[in-house]
């Protein structure tokens, strides 16, 4: 490897590679949001639901946590979505998009993991919180919405920061179905220039920076929404 020759090559291809950040971050934040919107009802259902509801959610979680992301990506992109986009009445909906497949896979899997984070947080709250809310005449759903979830979501932030870094790393797998995110672009450039080494390093550095910036941002969020005096009490017990 000749550094003097490779540095201009890296420099030239950098705008193209950095353009992948948009795709990577859209995938990560899209999936986190989808996972959040699905994960909360799943968690509530798993704690407060009937036996049947709990059983169904358990199966969902088992499926999405048990099948590798890569296999899910193949199944959704080459299998399910490709099939659906052949159905005449669904044509034109853009169901054969690789980005959509990646977003669905990462989002649905994240929902399974996030539901377990929320479930843990809900169960960590003292039982008295629900009782006190009911004693004031709140219905169970009012109590969950205005008393249990605001507290449980705060407790979930450390879990989220973990979830973010997992999603970021999993999003790199979307290259396997052709989403033009960071990994996919560095690989393309590496193949064109026959210089895989510097570009593997570039991809590594980019992901490393994104991981740590995201974790720092979530730490700030955690500090911002902290309940005064609460952490101190927690560390004492």
């Amino acid at each position: 490897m000749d550094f003097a020759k490779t540095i201009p090559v890296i420099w030239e291809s950098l705008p193209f590679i950095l353009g992948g950040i948009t795709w990577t971050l859209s995938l990560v934040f899209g999936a986190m949001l989808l996972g959040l919107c699905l994960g909360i009802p799943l968690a509530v259902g798993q704690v407060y639901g009937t036996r049947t509801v709990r059983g169904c959610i358990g199966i969902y979680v088992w499926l999405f946590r048990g099948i590798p992301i890569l296999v899910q990506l193949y199944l959704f992109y080459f299998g399910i979505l490709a099939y659906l986009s052949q159905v005449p009445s669904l044509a034109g909906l853009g169901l054969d998009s690789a980005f959509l497949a990646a977003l669905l896979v990462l989002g649905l899997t994240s929902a399974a993991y996030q539901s377990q984070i929320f479930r843990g947080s809900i169960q960590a709250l003292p039982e008295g919180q629900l009782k006190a809310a009911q004693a004031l005449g709140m219905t169970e759903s009012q109590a969950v919405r205005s008393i249990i979830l605001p507290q449980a979501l705060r407790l979930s932030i450390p879990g989220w920061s973990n979830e973010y870094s997992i999603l970021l790393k999993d999003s790199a797998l979307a290259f396997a179905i052709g989403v033009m995110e960071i990994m996919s672009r560095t690989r393309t450039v590496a193949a064109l220039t026959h210089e895989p080494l510097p570009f593997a390093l570039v991809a590594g550095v980019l992901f490393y920076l994104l991981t740590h910036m995201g974790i720092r941002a979530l730490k700030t969020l955690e500090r911002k929404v902290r309940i005064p005096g609460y952490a101190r009490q927690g560390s004492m017990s």
Partner: protein
Amino acid sequence: MNDYWHFFLNDVFPALNQGLWISIAVIVPSALLGLALGVLVGSLRVYAPAPVRLLNEVYVSLFRGTPLVVQLFFWYFALPHLQIGDLRIVLSPMSAAILGFTLCSGAYHSEYIRGALLSIRHGQIKAAQALGMSKTQTVLWVVLPQAMRRALPGCGNEIIYLIKYSSLASIITLNELTGIGRTIAKQTWRNIEVFVALGLYYLLLVTLATLLLQYIERRLALPGFSHARR
């Protein structure tokens, strides 16, 4: 319906079964080596002198901060381009996969080990030293046996992750489960059936591993120990 059975029995299952053995041949050594590396690194991160500790922190931060695909890509495609004098390392897909998985999961394991080591009460170490044990003896015979039990749920999870992420070996051309699944799907154009079957293979592996780990956890449990955590 008959056609379905034919397809699965004649084409899908025999091929996937072959892939399954290759997957297992990657997973088992990676899991064992990764765990051993994690125990070593985790202990060094807690007990080693500052420079060694720093080195280990850097290793963990790098391998946890970058995607596993990028790491595999590096070991298999990029490493041969790194030439120092006449020395060039070219790894086979199998050894690149095992190396990549071991280094990555070792970093994650070390997190759990470190946390568990730090949770052992100081009195345990003092008591061991009062009996005349050296620092290494204390760590080996008193602290680690307790810490391993505490780290077990986390490390077990890590092994489950490893099983799932072993599918990435297909990207560096190894013909394990996922690689073979991809090949059959391409040949037969029956994507949904093949990938569902592939998913079931992984579900089976993950579920069996979970049960096995739960069994080990129960076998190793010390009476009342897990409650003493808080």
